[in-house]
């Protein structure tokens, strides 16, 4: 239980840190796509006896870089590229799951999250890689903001936009792989996107929006984990429903303040 709370707290902080840059670049479905690919990674790990989080991480980083390469080449529109990998990830996962006949794989906990499945190895990975995400975002925050505002303007300003985009999608892949234990693969995208959209309702500066979204995310995860623990509900679904509730409350508050 303590492990789940520590892991949840760490994920709640890092998910909107990257999520805000995906949302403002209309790339919200990136997280969902990577989550579906991660499922294939987990299924493959179950079949081959590998560490599931690491297998999901390797597959989702490879996918993230491939999607970004396709998008930046202009050969496939961003969203269309995501659709191919989202379906492909799910298709591969279903084939691998059927091939492994469900050995070592609790499908419900992978899909919807379960606080009982966070292992000590998972916690070490979440804290270690979570720290990497926070430090990277602190280092390139201004540059990522400039790209979110307008990619062409950022290029003319002399920024290495292609490299920064690659770093962003790798960070997204890391968060998706780390979050799946807590919120589940089907709801990972929600944790990266909904707190950000809720914070955007207040129309503050980019930095304040980011800080508010982290608070909303932490509130949703901690209260969701409590509810899941005492009521026996799936943690991912509970956390997502609370985040959606906060979004509606934020919308109402922002309407009242106009």
């Amino acid at each position, binding site marked *: 239980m303590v492990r789940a709370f520590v892991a949840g707290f760490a994920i709640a902080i890092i998910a909107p840190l990257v999520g805000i840059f995906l949302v403002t670049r209309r790339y919200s479905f990136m997280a969902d796509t990577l989550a579906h690919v991660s499922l294939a990674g987990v299924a493959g790990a179950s079949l081959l006896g590998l560490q599931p989080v690491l297998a999901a991480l390797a597959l989702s980083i490879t996918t993230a870089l491939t999607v970004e390469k396709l998008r930046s080449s202009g050969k496939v529109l961003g969203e269309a590229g995501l659709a191919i990998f989202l379906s492909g990830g799910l298709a591969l996962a279903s084939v691998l799951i059927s091939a492994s006949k469900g050995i070592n794989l609790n499908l419900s906990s992978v899909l919807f999250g379960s606080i009982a499945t966070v292992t000590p190895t998972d916690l070490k990975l979440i804290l270690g890689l979570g720290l990497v995400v926070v430090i990277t975002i602190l280092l390139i925050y201004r540059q990522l903001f400039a790209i979110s505002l307008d990619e062409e303007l950022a290029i003319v300003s002399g920024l290495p936009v292609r490299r920064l985009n690659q770093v962003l999608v790798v960070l997204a892949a890391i968060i998706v792989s780390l979050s799946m234990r807590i919120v589940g693969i089907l709801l990972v995208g929600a944790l990266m996107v909904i707190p950000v959209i809720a914070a955007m309702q207040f129309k503050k*500066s980019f930095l304040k929006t980011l800080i508010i979204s982290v608070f909303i995310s932490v509130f949703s995860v901690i209260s969701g984990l409590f509810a899941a623990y005492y009521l026996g509900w799936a943690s991912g679904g509970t956390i997502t429903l609370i985040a959606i509730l906060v979004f509606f409350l934020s919308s109402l508050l922002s309407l009242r303040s106009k």
Partner: protein
Amino acid sequence: MQIKETAIKVESLSFSYQNTRILENVSFEIKQGEYVGLIGPNGGGKTTLLKLITGLTSSQKGKVRIHGLTPEKARRKGKIGYVPQRIVQANIQCPATVEEVVTSGRLSNIGIGGHFRKSDLKAIETAMLDTDVEKFRHRSIDDLSGGEKQRVFIARALASEPSILILDEPTTGVDMKATKNFYSLLKDLNQWHGMTIIIVSHDIEAVAKEVDSVLCLNRELVSTCKHEDMKHNSKEILNALYGSDKTIIHHHHDHA
């Protein structure tokens, strides 16, 4: 007599897209401190030419040099300020204050993880003061009018202290009073700061009145002329550009 440095040199530039020739053997030179208008019909290659100068598009044939540098190197040194057309009209989805937008124009001066020095902060403040956006620095960019938003993005372009300012149809969607203020700002930047300016506009009369010289582009460079020539030979130039009889209809920008 002082010989001015060449700011932009375009040599034998050709560009095709999907087997359609967009630019054909375009060559010209712009000296430091020149104020140049770029006019031509839709599809005449104006935006493509700007993208080649800024390096957003790589050249296929011919070359572009900015103060002797490739566009990529000039960008990294913060020498180019750019204001695209769509940014003024767009409903920007990114939450941002005016100050955050202007500050993002100064990033070529700091590396990854770097911090702004006093000189950087001063340049950002000066850019906001010159464009008169300092008074609403904490407002959200999406709450501004077209004219205000335009000034913010000019301030953003000025924050890197560029030697060249490039503007693509900047007065589209901006009211007459704001347009008049805008041209006055560009005049100041050109005359008092010696900035080289290239402006693409459909408002041929305004361009002819404001700039030192005009580049007339319709796939190839139809003519380059001083603004006095534009006044006297406007009919011939417009016919060559647009292919049929065109007349300038005069209007006044001060009827706000």
